[in-house]
């Protein structure tokens, strides 16, 4: 393989070099031997436990999953067997058959379990990462967004029913993605979406409380207000305050979990 050849060549050259830079040594760190089926299993399991694919929803067919994940169908099949063994999905045969997320898969419970097992250090670090990327997005968006684009996000958010927990969570995630995209940066938007997928289940957990949902709504509106004024600092502070409040609520929630 060409890639291996290139790596061996670099490694040999490094033998004679004084000290490889830290970035360079990172290239040769072990990549782990986790199999592809395990990677597929983990990806789908995270989506189910995070509530991105709700209970009862049908998964794409084996062949569709294999095509889009660019793995062999047998790899997908292996992953689905593992997910079935964990009770996350059920498989039905027949005309309307396929793999479905188990009705018992309750993302709130999964997320509570994850929160309970997470250290405060890790939780705060997730908040710091989420906040940093989101602030970078809104900073660029404040300089680049057109008022009409901000107004449309505001309109869609106003149409979302905050009384419905799931509908609100979805609308809030969408608004956040749209705000990130206003940065006109593909890299930052991709990174923000990845972090949103990770952080959103936690926001959903504290959003079980209606007043917390109202707080979340006001936070997004504060960001939109700042974007409309082209005020990058105010947009970044609004994000920062929101993440700090959310992490504090999550730590409270975690303490209640530990006491229970």
């Amino acid at each position: 393989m060409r890639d291996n050849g290139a790596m061996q060549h670099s490694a040999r050259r490094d033998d004679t070099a004084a000290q490889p830079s830290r970035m360079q040594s990172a290239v040769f760190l072990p990549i782990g031997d986790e199999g592809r089926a395990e990677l597929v299993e983990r990806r789908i399991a995270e989506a189910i436990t995070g509530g991105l694919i709700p209970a009862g929803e049908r998964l794409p067919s084996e062949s569709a999953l294999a095509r889009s994940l660019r793995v062999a169908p047998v790899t997908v099949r292996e992953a689905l067997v593992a997910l079935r063994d964990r009770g996350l999905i059920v498989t039905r045969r027949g005309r309307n058959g396929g793999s479905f997320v188990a009705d018992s898969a309750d993302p709130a419970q999964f997320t509570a379990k994850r929160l309970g097992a997470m250290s405060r250090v890790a939780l705060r670090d997730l908040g710091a990462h989420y906040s940093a990327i989101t602030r970078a997005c809104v900073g660029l968006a404040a300089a680049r967004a057109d008022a009409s684009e901000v107004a449309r996000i505001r309109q869609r958010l106003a149409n979302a029913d905050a009384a419905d927990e799931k509908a609100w969570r979805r609308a809030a995630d969408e608004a956040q993605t749209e705000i990130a995209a206003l940065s006109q940066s593909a890299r930052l938007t991709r990174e923000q979406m990845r972090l949103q997928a990770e952080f959103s289940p936690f926001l959903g957990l504290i959003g079980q409380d209606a007043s917390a949902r109202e707080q979340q709504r006001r936070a997004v509106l504060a960001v939109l207000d700042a974007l409309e004024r082209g005020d990058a600092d105010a947009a970044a502070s609004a994000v920062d305050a929101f993440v700090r409040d959310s992490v504090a609520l999550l730590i409270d929630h975690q303490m209640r979990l530990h006491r229970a």
Partner: protein
Amino acid sequence: MKALQATDAPAAVDTVTAFFQRGVDALGEGTRELAADVASARAEGPLTRAKLDAIVLPYAQALFDRAGVTVYGAGFIAAIGLLNDASGHLSWWQGPRHSKLELAAQNIGKEHIDYSELEWYRVPVSTGKPHIAGPHVDYLCSDEYTITVAYPVFVGGEFIGVHGMDVLLDAVEGELLPLLSGETEEITVINAVGRVLVSTNPHRATGDPVRDAGDTLTRYECEGLPLAVLVS
């Protein structure tokens, strides 16, 4: 900014207009035939995602092969309610390998995004005319920074979907800038909200709005397109 008649426009404005018009025309070429194919499939029986995909694929392939610009993604987006087995659907191929877009599998959660509100769908539906949407980070399909050329598709007055293609801003820069390399003036292409697509001025970033134009830049509309050219 001064607004001048198109007859006064420098040659660079024609170059820019022709560049984008070529993409719009390439898309429009297949649109009528695609509409006819979808109409006859509907007349035969229930229209499903799989049937639609089979109809659209050759049209997408033709764009990849012959659009006259490097196309990153191409296909047809069904009008909400067109299909019998899903409310909406994107028959879409993209990327270096022209892979089929599998929304649900690619990024779970994305399939819930309501595309009827997005510029490349909303504008051609409401105007009935082709549109160039963006520049935007296309977070639904490619996660890349693109413009989307979008042609509304009608069958007997009924709107059935959008025939579209994505072109990366990378490609716009790589393929349009060389055509403008002989220009001594600054040439900056902006969209309807004043966002820069590409500029011969290396300090004017793609994605930025032009707010400092003042009297230093003259604005020329690209006839028939939602774009304008600013010339120093």
